[in-house]
């Protein structure tokens, strides 16, 4: 048995692969549920349907998806150009920290300008954090994977220091939390008592922008060419450094916006627990969504749903929390397996004594 690359992997299958992976995940999930002694269909219903069967549930899905989608939208553009920004987490945290600090400063100010200033400060902070990596990459050729990961830790430590120190609530018994933000600094919610804010529209709008940029502009063309072949991009006379700056600043800004959507949205204060891994989950979302804006949207909805489903399965079925991780793991495993088998194939070679293997290779490839 041998594994070899397919000469022409089917492009249709490349896009169907996530659906295939989802199907396989559901089947395996059903098997796991029945092995745990639960009715498989009812369990899948409790995991994937029940959490979003009410208006409240749907609104909560969007609450969960908002920061994921914002981070993923920025990363889509970066990853298309093979600029590996692993630092959305740090850009998220730094954006949240600065937006939070500005919100606290503006606690006593009223006026229409307050919220735009808060949002802009978070976005600019995210851009600044990504800008450090851009500078290190374009100036000193320091690889962005390393610098952005390291900047994640620095951002989290800065947040901890601020919340334990200068931004700690004076009336909070020394607990590491800021004051609650004033209402005028919070993102408006869409309706009623639901927590979903206008940030979801910003996310969708930016996703549409990314789509247009990729398909209709020179910048998008350059991005795609750079992703295909960096050398070719250079020969074509594209300014690679400028492109790296634009892409990193854009994705940093989006991650900063995600930070704003979280602290000035459902959380409403700075705490030590803001880094929940949205920036890392967004990386998975971008790959699962094939770096395509529509795919990214679907993947973020699906991953958001696995979190809600995991909570609901605990409440209604009494299943452990690990079921969330199991589903996310299965999904990723099957996706990678499908991708691999779409670009590669397994060839069964009959055993033929001690003939050198290169002979059989020639036979197979010529047939």
């Amino acid at each position: 048995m041998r594994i070899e690359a397919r000469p022409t992997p089917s492009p249709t299958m490349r896009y169907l692969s996530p659906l295939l992976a989802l199907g396989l995940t559901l089947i395996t999930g059903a098997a796991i549920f029945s092995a745990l002694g639960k009715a498989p269909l009812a369990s899948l219903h409790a995991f994937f349907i029940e959490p979003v069967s009410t208006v409240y549930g749907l609104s909560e899905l969007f609450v969960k998806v908002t920061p994921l989608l914002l981070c993923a939208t920025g990363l889509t553009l970066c990853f298309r150009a093979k600029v590996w920004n692993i630092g959305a987490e740090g850009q998220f945290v730094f954006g949240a920290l600065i937006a939070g600090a500005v919100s606290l400063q503006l606690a006593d100010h009223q006026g229409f300008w307050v919220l735009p200033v808060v949002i802009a400060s978070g976005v600019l902070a995210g851009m600044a954090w990504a800008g450090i990596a851009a500078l290190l990459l374009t100036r000193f050729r320091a690889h962005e994977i390393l610098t952005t990961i390291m900047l994640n830790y620095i951002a989290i430590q800065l947040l901890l220091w601020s919340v334990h120190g200068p931004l700690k609530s004076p009336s909070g018994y020394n607990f590491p939390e800021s004051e609650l933000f004033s209402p005028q600094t919070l993102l408006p919610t869409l309706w009623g008592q639901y927590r979903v804010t206008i940030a979801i529209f910003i996310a969708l709008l930016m996703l549409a922008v990314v789509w247009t940029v990729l398909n209709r502009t020179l910048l998008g063309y350059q991005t795609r060419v750079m992703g295909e072949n960096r050398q070719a991009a250079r020969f074509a006379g594209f300014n690679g450094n400028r492109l790296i700056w634009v892409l990193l600043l854009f994705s940093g800004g989006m991650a900063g916006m995600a930070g704003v959507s979280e602290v000035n949205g459902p959380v409403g204060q700075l705490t030590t627990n803001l880094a929940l891994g949205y920036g890392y989950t967004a990386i998975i979302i971008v790959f699962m969504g094939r770096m395509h804006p529509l795919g990214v949207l679907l993947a973020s909805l699906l991953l958001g749903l696995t979190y809600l489903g995991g909570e609901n399965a605990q409440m209604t079925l009494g299943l452990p929390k690990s079921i969330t991780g199991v589903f996310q793991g299965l999904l990723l495993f099957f996706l990678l397996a499908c991708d691999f088998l779409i670009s590669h194939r397994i060839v069964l070679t009959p055993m033929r004594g001690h003939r050198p293997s290169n002979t059989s290779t020639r036979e197979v490839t010529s047939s």
Partner: protein
Amino acid sequence: MKAPTLISLGLSAALALSSPLHAAEDPLKVGFVYVSPIGDAGWTYMHDRARKIVDKEFGDRVETTYVESVSEGSDSQRVIRNLSANGHDLIFTTSFGYMNPTLRVARQFPNVRYEHATGYKTAENVGNYQARAYQGRYLAGMAAGAMTETDTIGYVAGFPIPEVLRGINAFTLGVREVNPDASVSVSWINSWHDPAKERESAASLIRQDADVLTMHADSPAVVQAAQDEGVYGIGYNSNMKSYGPDAHLTSVMMHWEPIYQEKIQAVLNDSWEPESIWYGLSEGVVKMAPMHSDIPEAVVERINTHRDALINGDREVFQGPINNQDGEEIVAKGDALKDQQLLEINWYVEGIEGKLPN
């Protein structure tokens, strides 16, 4: 769940609360929200152990639900709200970071009662509870002070918040009670549950000469490290002897069941009030695991005497004279720190090495 079902659930919950007859038929639904996986040891394990005890004890009258590993950010508010909408009558939220989410949900569900652990805010339908773990820390410190040969004791700690500082200070007072030459080194890990980091910090404290270790974190990694490196370890939350049979001096154990029994009974009797309760050794919420056989009989006796004095109220952990790290007297002889001062404590007592972060 559709809106009409929601309303009818809310109605039936309201009915269950208002009429004792109805309450006798429908079990009281009690929800628990946990910050980490239940696991086999630690903070959440002890809360869940208490849940199982009350679930069994109240039998048909009570039905319990839990959700584990709920992060303290925006997720917790959704989980608490879903439990409330699901017809739960009493919800225990067992981590500090759930305080504001609990209060926000409580405003939307005036008929549901909430109990938040380790916080400081209350509302009409929100009470809070915590344990005087520092009393146990003091007794554990006495054991550590008696057993150290290098006069250096290592303490792996989560976050520098008052609850943790109270524990470190009380532990150090206990250490110095039996061994005035010994000092305590603290290593901060900025996490409640990170076994790898807990272990790493334990190893680095041992390299700095510590021969007794304890921790304020959720996993038994520090006790395991103590066992592997041949030093003593003191557990926290649950009895951690099985993680280091030779190393384990004792554990400061948190038994939440007296609080859960009391609160559930109060809701059943319709006498529940939003209050702040702080129970310790006297109420059986804080307990000590059996002492290691290496600890001399005389030391064990001394520890027991101090324990009895704390239970009877003959002495307090934070009674003067107490100096701070710089040697300035903070509590005079004959005085003791008040609960309010303990709640916001933000300084180190004498005998702790290193600077307090911020």
